[in-house]
């Protein structure tokens, strides 16, 4: 799968990469440091990712703003977006579902728990039929 990870925190990026390589999965991870960068990437004409993992709290453009822009786009609005965040704020959760998301995953405290959770998320999307291209 092609995964687009939108995340400003380096350690978080490392956590996902480590999880993927540790579990021996063959996903390609593309990174974007923030929403603007992600939009640029998505509109660059390169093949679109299969799923997007999106952090909510980011500088400049928040995850929710990015999500709203994406849903305005005739093509990009069909991308499955899975939120990956530490925010347990119910307001955020509800707002994300209102705009339209494919999942909402809260980052656990312990890395072991993170690895466990992410392996399940990725396994789920792997068995899903994806639009591709």
């Amino acid at each position: 799968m092609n995964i687009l990870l939108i995340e400003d925190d380096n350690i978080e990026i490392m956590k996902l990469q480590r999880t993927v390589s540790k579990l021996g999965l063959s996903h390609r991870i593309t990174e974007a440091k923030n929403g603007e960068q992600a939009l640029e990437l998505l509109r660059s004409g390169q093949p679109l990712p299969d799923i997007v993992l999106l952090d909510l709290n980011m500088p400049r453009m928040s995850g929710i703003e990015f999500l709203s822009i994406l849903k305005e786009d005739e093509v990009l609005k069909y991308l499955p977006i899975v939120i990956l965040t530490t925010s347990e704020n119910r307001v955020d959760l509800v707002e994300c579902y209102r705009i339209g998301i494919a999942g909402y995953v809260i980052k656990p405290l312990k890395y072991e728990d993170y690895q466990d959770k992410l392996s399940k998320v990725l396994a789920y999307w792997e068995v899903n039929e994806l639009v591709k291209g």
Partner: protein
Amino acid sequence: MDNKEVTLLKKALERQKKARQQAERILEEKSKELFDVTHHLKESNSKLENLLNEKTSELDGVFINIIDPYVVMDLKFNVINMNNSAKTFLGYDHTKESLNLASIVHHDFIAYTAQSFQSLIEVGTLKNYRAKILTKAKEEKWVLINSSLIYNTDRKPIAAQGIVRDITQEMEVKQLLAEQKKQLNTIVENSPLGIVLAVEDKIVKTNTTFVELLGYTENELKEMSVRDISAPEDIANSEKLIVQMNKGELDKFSIIKKYYKKDGGFVLARTLVSAVKDEKGKVDYQVALVEDITKEREAEERLRNEREKYSSIIANMNLGLIEVDNDDVIQMVNQSFCTMSGFDREELIGNKAAKVVQVQEGRIIDEKQAERLVGKSDSYEVEVRNKKGQSRHWLISGAPRYDNNKNVVGSIGIHLDITDQKQLEIQKEKLLEELEKSNEGLQEYAHIVSHDLKSPLRSISALASWLTEDYHDKLDDNGKFNLQQIQEKIEGMDGLIDGILKYSSINDATLDNTLVDVNEVVGGIREIIFVPENVNIVIMNPLPSIKVDKTKIHQLFQNLISNAVVNIERTDGLVEISSKENTSHWQFSVKDNGVGIPKEYHEKIFKVFQSIGNNQRSTGIGLSIVKKIVDVYQGKIWLESTVGEGTTFHFTLKK
């Protein structure tokens, strides 16, 4: 029998014979005498009878010729004789038709007539028989009859004779007088005015009104003088007037004076005294018409007091009073209005109110004026400028003013300066708005802070894990232990951040109250918290369903149950949960048989960050959350505990 005896008997017999002969002779003589007397009497009787008859006839002649009607009747009321006058008066002639006098008596007088006749028979004469009769011409006539019986020679009554007087006119006059007297009495007795007739100050007659007014009986009053019932302060004045009246200088006078009542009280009365004079102009009587004006005076007095009271209130009240006409031109203001507005009376009166005080929204005054014209009263607020040009807020209560014909001639307004209140109100509104915003901001802030604190914690935790994993072979035990310590501290801090976030999100505004079954809540908690083998959580009685925010009640029970579980060290650990219903609150209890809490901590443990346990993972915020939730539901929380035996937390939630 011997001869002697026979001789004696013969002699006795002889004597008796002689005696009888003598008696017979005497009897004969007496009879003769009696016969002579009787004969003589007969003669004289017959003589007398003739004499009587003669006399009667003689009288007949007299009566026949007298002027008053004269009638003789038998004892059955049949007329035997009547004179011409009687014939004329009654219209009947007994020589032409039989006339029974009973039949012409007016039916009202039949019983009276029978009674009178009885009396005539017994006494022999009857005087002043008065009755109405009907003449042949069907005229009702009043008659006065004096009559006597006529006897026969055997002294037996055989007839009655009577002289009739026509008193019809007399009776009519009498009746008229009686009628008039009655009418007059009716007027006098029903008069709302007390009426007193006095002769030289002595009361002669009074009416019921006056009797009722003073409470004396009429007889008591008749023993009194006007002076006796007059208040001393009035006597001099009224007597002076009476003197003038007696001199003929006054015919009548009016005076307001006090009369004492029998019960000691007094009435104030307007008295009109008139003189009643004889032909020579001398005063016979004084007639006084007495009108009780006590109540009238009291009412006037009350009215005056009220008026004084209100005018003094108006003058002294802290409210501005203003009267305007229909064109808003000021007619009257009180001192307070001048003070409030800063203008003098002269600057106000005669000018348009809204102009002088520069009512900021002039339209409102026009609207209110239109409402006054249709009789509406209400209150409204305006912003004005005082003489110094400062903005003031006034609360005005306005009502229409009417003239005597009920036409609206303007309005009257009471003004309260509410500038301070208004400013406070505006300030309050601003503060509330700010508070709301800052509350929202705070919520948001708490979430951001918690996120920003949690993210690095996750990074540190990941890094520590990777160190442990990647450098497992290179680290000695001490190093591994320290990494383990780092992980534990991170967990503690993560819990603390969660707790603070929860604590800060408990407030009224965010509550979502629904009917929650507490049994389910406790059941759910039992499933998600770690309960060691040695501890049993038991619900002692069916818990109620209550109207609360499900998340908050969950947090509440979870904290208390977790605390209870954590603090149990014995092998037969037991946590008992029970409830009971009070009038206004539900009371819940969570009881454990754990280590117990020393008395000195019973208050302290509810304060934020106060942890008393040795437990490393205790953040000290759990019971603060519990306390805050209980506070939000207007309840109380307290605990009973014995060290070494256990602790019971009680808390109440308002229904």
